[in-house]
């Protein structure tokens, strides 16, 4: 592969590299999807035939999505340190292309997870979605914030012992505001009442912007010793 020097091209190449390695083994995607399927079936079976209120549906959906994401998103940096390719990556690219390449890959992974989970969730839990467009917007914004925070925390843990158990502990308090907003907005999208575009969507966007901006700045301090 020819080496191209602009940051944009390097980001693109890194994303391409992530997708290629993932396509070779398909370990990340299959583990992520099976994890979410396991959680969903556990929830669905224990609930049985009861019908749930929109609030409960939203809570369950985000809990499944959050813990599935926690199970899968740390891999982007974990596999680099496991396979000893971190140094090569350091030589190849500066910090920002690495961060954004991994971040976009995580976003794509989460979108795939959401696309897989949402239809099954609707079928298994007998949910109705009167506001599908709004729900997609909330999921889009939520997934971006989730991936941004998870990518930074995962990179933080490359130099730490016992990484995978710390990942959820470190991510949870940072993602919690996002989670609370997403649950409220998703509940509104599941309920048959009118969905008004209110300030909460604005806050969600603001949260994404702050998290991404700060993660991009702080990543420099992790990437360069």
């Amino acid at each position, binding site marked *: 592969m020819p080496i191209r020097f602009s940051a944009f091209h390097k980001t693109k190449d890194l994303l391409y590299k992530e997708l290629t390695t993932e396509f070779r083994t398909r370990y990340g995607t299959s583990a992520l999807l099976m994890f979410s399927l396991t959680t969903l079936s556990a929830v669905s079976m224990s609930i049985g035939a009861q019908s749930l209120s929109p609030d409960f549906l939203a809570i369950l959906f985000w809990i499944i999505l959050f813990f599935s994401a926690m199970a899968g998103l740390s891999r982007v940096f974990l596999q680099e340190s496991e396979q000893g390719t971190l140094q090569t990556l350091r030589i190849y690219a500066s910090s920002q292309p690495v961060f954004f390449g991994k971040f976009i890959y995580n976003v794509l992974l989460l979108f795939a997870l959401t696309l897989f989970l949402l239809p099954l969730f609707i079928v298994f839990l007998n949910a109705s979605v009167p506001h599908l467009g709004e729900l997609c917007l909330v999921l889009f914004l939520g997934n971006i914030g989730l991936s941004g925070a998870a990518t*930074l925390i995962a990179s933080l843990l490359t*130099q730490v*012992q016992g990484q995978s158990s710390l990942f959820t502990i*470190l991510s949870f*308090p*940072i993602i919690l*505001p996002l989670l609370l907003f997403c649950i409220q907005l998703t509940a509104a999208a599941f309920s048959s009442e009118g969905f008004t575009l209110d300030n909460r969507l604005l*806050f969600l966007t603001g949260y994404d912007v702050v998290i991404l901006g700060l993660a991009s700045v*702080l990543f420099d301090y*992790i990437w360069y010793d």
Partner: protein
Amino acid sequence: MFFDTSLTALTLAVIWAVFYLVPPAQGLGDLVRIAFFHIPTAWVSVLAFVLSAWWSILYLKTRKIEADALSCRSAALGLIFCLLATISGAVFAKLTWGAYWNWDPRQITIFILLLVYGAYFALRSAIAEPPVRARLSAVYALFAGAAMPFLIFVIPRYYSSLHPEPVINASGHIDMDPVMLAVLLAASAVMTLIYLRLLFRRRCSA
């Protein structure tokens, strides 16, 4: 030595003032005296966390290990004061609202603060090398700090709260008995001095 003696005397004077000088509040009676412990501890924990973040920034800029030691110690003190504020708040809630814990917005916020700094110390304990530990924990503390404004300003808007209005409230004037206000300020000052005394103690094993 002189500082310690005068701080002890000051603390005792404030405790005396809280129990003998402050009049019982309307509606709350003697329970209001908890507030003279609760508000200063909450204030000091915020101060400690802000200073800890400040020393984290300083460490990332200068890479001096002393800045990290101060940041860590301030975070530890912040965690202790935060726990004291949580417990005194929960006791106050039990006596006035009827339950120790009901996920009031304030309780959500303070609980997440405890989680953040619990995670911060879990991260620190997992890294052996001091420079790496200092760098990564500083990054984490600052990253978590970014989520704080959302917790403090946004969440209370969407959950109804039973927490009394802050002393400096939205309407901009202070509704408080002047004696109470003076004692509260004195208690906050004493608590801040106790924090500073603990922060700059000579020997530290953090």
